[in-house]
């Protein structure tokens, strides 16, 4: 089933004009903010396909910026997000690309803040639903509909077993997983979508696991951050 529940049909509550070009873009911005785990100072956004052609008319630039600021899809400050970003010291740049993308509504976000940086590519697939397809150079897919753990680690035996054991001990059910690596025994990344919220202490324990390089936790349903 592509659509899982009643609120993927009635909803989201959002600022117009387009569920795919506006609401979906806010959510993609929020995922990127979640990956950086701090206030972005510099943001570069590249629009592909239909977004490249119509981002201005749909306010997609305002919507992504709102997401980077941590706003929700129905925040009435979305139309003023560029001014708000400027006031808070965030530089946002937009580019369009004519390189063909996998989906008509694709965008890429690069963020930095001091020595932290991240990159992600995602698609807005309709009705305000999104699909992330790339994180920091890894081909990882997830929807943002569930609490999501993104773990960067070294490609070594037992890393996933240790991670899933921690989740199992906390009675957190895994609904979906995706793994990618840059090279055998090299840099790898795993995304895990869970049914229940992931307790903070579990994240702390996971960070200490051997071969784990970094852990990001994204929960878009937990409401917008301030």
């Amino acid at each position, binding site marked *: 089933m592509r659509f899982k529940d*009643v*609120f993927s049909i*009635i909803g989201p509550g959002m*600022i*117009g*004009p387009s569920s795919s070009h506006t609401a979906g873009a806010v959510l993609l911005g929020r995922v990127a903010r979640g990956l950086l785990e701090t206030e972005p100072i510099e943001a570069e956004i590249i629009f592909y396909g239909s977004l490249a052609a119509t981002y201005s008319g749909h306010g997609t630039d305002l919507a992504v910026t709102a997401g980077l600021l941590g706003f929700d899809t129905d925040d*009435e400050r979305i139309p003023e997000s560029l001014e708000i970003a400027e006031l808070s010291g965030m530089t946002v740049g937009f580019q*369009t690309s004519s390189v063909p993308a996998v989906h008509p509504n694709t965008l890429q976000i690069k963020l930095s803040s001091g020595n932290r940086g991240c990159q992600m590519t995602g698609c807005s697939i309709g009705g305000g639903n999104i699909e992330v397809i790339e994180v920091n150079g890894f081909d990882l897919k997830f929807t943002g509909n569930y609490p999501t753990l993104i773990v960067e680690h070294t490609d070594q035996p037992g890393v996933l077993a240790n991670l899933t054991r921690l989740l199992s001990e906390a009675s957190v059910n895994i609904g979906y997983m995706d793994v990618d690596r840059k090279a055998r025994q090299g840099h790898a990344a795993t995304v895990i979508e869970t049914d229940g919220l992931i307790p903070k202490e579990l994240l702390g324990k996971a960070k200490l696991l051997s071969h784990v390089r970094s852990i990001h936790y994204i929960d878009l349903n937990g409401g917008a951050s301030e």
Partner: protein
Amino acid sequence: MRFSSLKELAVVCEKEGKSICDIMLEDQAAESGRSKEQEWEKMKAYYGIMKDAAAKGIVSEKTSRSGLTGGDAKRVHEYTRNPDASLEPFTGLAMAYALAVSEVNASMGRIVATPTAGSCGVIPGVFVSSQERFGWDDDHMVKGLFSAGAIGYIIANNSFISGAEGGCQAEIGSAIGMAAGALVELKGGTPAQAVHAVGLALKNTLGLICDPVGGLVEIPCIVRNGFGAVNALAAADMALAGVRSAIPTDEVIQVMLEVGSAMPDTHRETAMGGLAQTPTGKEIIRQLAKDRKKPAVSKKEDTK
């Protein structure tokens, strides 16, 4: 969910002696792991957003971000209240509210995607006008939103609800079917009658293309929301009068899938055909592109 087709939904309703709303609410709570009360409150908040948008849009003269549209809801509301109007006033109100919510959407106001932002006017148009007409309370309307959601869930998973995939029939068509079926249930009709209303409504929008001028959710999206609300009222009345969809509604949904899949790309939200490519449509696009060259914030263009 215990249902994946409208037929299955009607069977579950009949077997358990429950409404479409009851079944949707129970299955939603089971799927999300939250309580029925929590899901009810979330839907009720959404209804609040719909009412606010309807009230705001019907008096607004604000133009959209592009400047292409705005103020039609107010015009229609004022005209349909006078005795010369062909529509009965509450039908005119449904149309005006539908236009109102769609205009709020186009001007970056707050709405609820039902099922998409492009089709966000139909359900509030039907619901808010019917609530005023029949004196229903908000909880009654929330029931209707769960029924509409169940119908949309089935359409979305068996066919589509986005114009980019299946044309306007998938957006406005689905919204009309959802509103019509829900209204039947709100007025005391049976689940079977509600399902017939969906089929009757969908048959009337099969083949409708998605051809927005400049790719913007404005022309012709906004007026199609207005017409959509009126069609939903008509379909609900037909079904309540005892008219049946001779072709079962699940089969009509399959036709929407067949027709949408056969639609050329030019007619699926790309603005490469239909109204978008008429001489006037192209002129509007040219004008918009010209305006876009002088943005308020510095932007770099087209680096590959």
